[in-house]
């Protein structure tokens, strides 16, 4: 465990200092970290699933707290928890179907790992009735006298509570860990290849002689457009530069290197040019449960303009960006302000930045948000 602790602390530091760029990289590293946490967890004989879940949750909460704006972390943690529960459930169904032996009912979140070993026959019979049922109010209330903690599902998605039965406990525990790690590997694989899968659909959406607008730079969009180019579609791209990070310049450079006709425009010209555009394609930072999108700053303006001119607004997002939370006041709560030096040179404006006018409040504030919220009605696909 000290091994993983060091890893966890290291990752936490990186998250706090915002050293990891991009939600895909973050998601991948989170998944890998959780994989090592899982492999290091000591598994008791009974209730393995909840041991795993407990340790993953502990680490996950710390990770989410380190960088609440990076929603991919939370998404990956929830998916790993879901994997654990699913694997547990499938193992139990296999065991149950195969052996149909003494049943032991486990409740998801309860902490009584001490009093399990031998249940009386009556308890076993009662438990077998309640096995394999998805959590309902009745099952929860039945177990309330037994367990100290009130079982509750966290705000994340975890649905199937694994009721585990064991015929052969030791081999089952090994199997559970093994299965979970395999599934997490698959998850990592998915995260890495999400861009290719999205890009494969490019040809259906981009037709001949189309004009596409995008803002800033997203690797998903880049691969999407290149895939369409590979399939011999000819189209033009307008890239808005995306001040103050000017990522649009990077994207434009990449696109021209691959031979696409690109025009670089300023963000202010987006409204002017959008009437001549067939489609707007952008990448997202995260997609919320109501369909709203957290996107790089400036995209709300583009989405409004697209709606006014009836231009389809398409968002590309990998599955690690799908978040089961509902946004409340997302512009403020799910946003980060970056350094004002990107907007104003401190040296030039040092005279204005002094505290003035006697009331002690600074006269000049500089606002540099990172993200924008695009409500679901502005988004076509």
């Amino acid at each position, binding site marked *: 465990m000290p091994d993983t602790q060091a890893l966890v602390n290291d990752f936490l530091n990186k998250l706090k200092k915002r050293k990891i760029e991009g939600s895909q990289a973050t998601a991948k590293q989170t998944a890998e970290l959780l994989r090592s946490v899982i492999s290091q967890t000591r598994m008791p004989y009974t209730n393995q699933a909840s041991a795993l879940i407990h340790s993953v949750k502990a680490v996950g909460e710390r990770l989410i707290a380190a960088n609440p704006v990076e929603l991919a972390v939370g998404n990956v943690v929830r998916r790993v928890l879901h994997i654990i529960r699913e694997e547990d459930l499938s193992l139990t169904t296999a065991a149950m179907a195969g052996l149909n032996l003494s049943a032991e009912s486990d409740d998801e979140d309860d902490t009584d790992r001490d009093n399990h070993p031998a249940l009386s026959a009556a308890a076993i019979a009662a438990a077998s009735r309640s096995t394999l049922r998805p959590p309902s109010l009745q099952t929860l209330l039945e177990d309330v006298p037994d367990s100290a903690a009130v079982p509750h599902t966290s705000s994340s998605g975890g649905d199937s509570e694994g009721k585990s039965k064991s015929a052969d406990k030791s081999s089952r525990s090994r199997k559970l860990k093994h299965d979970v790690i395999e599934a997490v590997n698959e998850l990592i694989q998915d995260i890495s290849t999400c861009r290719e899968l999205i890009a494969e659909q490019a040809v259906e959406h981009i037709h001949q002689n189309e004009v596409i607008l995008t803002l800033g730079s997203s690797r998903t969009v880049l691969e999407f457009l290149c895939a369409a180019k590979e399939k011999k579609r000819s189209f033009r791209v307008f890239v808005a*530069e*995306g*001040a*103050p*990070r*000017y990522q649009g*310049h*990077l994207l*434009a*450079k990449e*696109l*021209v*290197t691959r*031979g*696409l*006709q*690109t*025009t*670089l*425009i*300023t*963000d*202010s*010209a*987006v*409204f*002017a*040019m959008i*009437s*001549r555009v067939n489609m707007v394609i952008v990448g997202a930072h995260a997609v919320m449960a109501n369909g709203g999108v957290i996107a790089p*700053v*400036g995209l*709300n*303006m583009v989405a*409004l*303009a697209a709606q*006014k001119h009836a231009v389809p607004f398409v968002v590309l997002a990998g599955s690690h960006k799908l978040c089961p939370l509902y946004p409340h006041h997302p*512009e403020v709560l799910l*946003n980060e302000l970056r350094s004002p030096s*990107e*907007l*104003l*040179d401190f040296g*030039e*404006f040092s005279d*204005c930045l002094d505290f*003035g*006018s006697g009331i002690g*409040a600074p*006269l*000049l*504030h*500089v*606002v*540099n*948000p990172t993200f*924008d*919220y695009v409500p679901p009605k502005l988004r076509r696909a």
Partner: protein
Amino acid sequence: MNRVGLQYLAGDLSGGNARCIAMLQAFQEAIRDYSTPPEKTLTRDLTSKIGGFVSFLIECRPLSMSMGNAIRFLKSRIARLPLTLSESEAKTTLCSDIDRFINEKIVLADKVILRHAAAKIRDGDVLLTYGSSCVVEMILLYAHELGKQFRVVVVDSHPMLEGQKLLRRLVVKGLSCIYTQLNAISYVMHEVTRVFLGASSIFSNGTVYSMVGTASVAMVAHAFRVPVLVCCEAYKFHERVQLDSICFNELGDPDAISKVPGRVDVNFLDNLTDKQKENLELLNLKYDATPSDYISVIVTDYGMIPPTSVPVIVREYRKEYLLI
């Protein structure tokens, strides 16, 4: 004349009013220095001379709408000069006409606009402005002098970054300001109570022609239900109709887009190979057209009018100054 042209070219002189005044004053000087060659009438020769100057100015930088209107005024004054006047009298008449035009149409008009617009500012307001418009700046400073308590949000855009100059002038006078770039406008618009915009010109269908990005500001303000006030002197109105920003526009220097002053880390577009360059186009538009449905009211020297009344002003009052 050369000096003014070069100033345009260098971009030192910007802003509709400033350019127009500088041009008219240059014309005044030219008229004073002018002498009719023998065998030619004053009116025709002077008109062609003016035409020559105008072409020179167009070479330096395409005319703004306000300048176009001013030139038409001048040409019509020249054409109406009675033939009985001697040359020196004609010249003094023209110069005084130009002075009156500048005074009435620009200086006094601005004072009237100030009074109207400052009445719309209340204590506790958060006012948003885009770029640097001299009329809006005057309004903000005037309202501040009147003692109203408000905050200003200055929105700026690359590559001109005119907002920084406005910001400096406002902070020096003691106004409390927030500075941000155009992309962040959805973030700040929650707090804003009024939006004040300047215009280069207003067309007969109510479309406002102004610095590129104004349309986006007006659109987002409209989406957040914030009233948009456009402040524009009446001499800038034009009877043309324009539907979108592409039909008629001015292109700025394309290299201005790729350079970001003061930030070396983002100069991605240096060192492009030729193959890359042939696929890449840099488009730097200077103006854009804001549809009239985003505008709540236009503040002019004739009062506060809705965008639909612009053709009325053009029709009724255009005759007036041609007859003064």
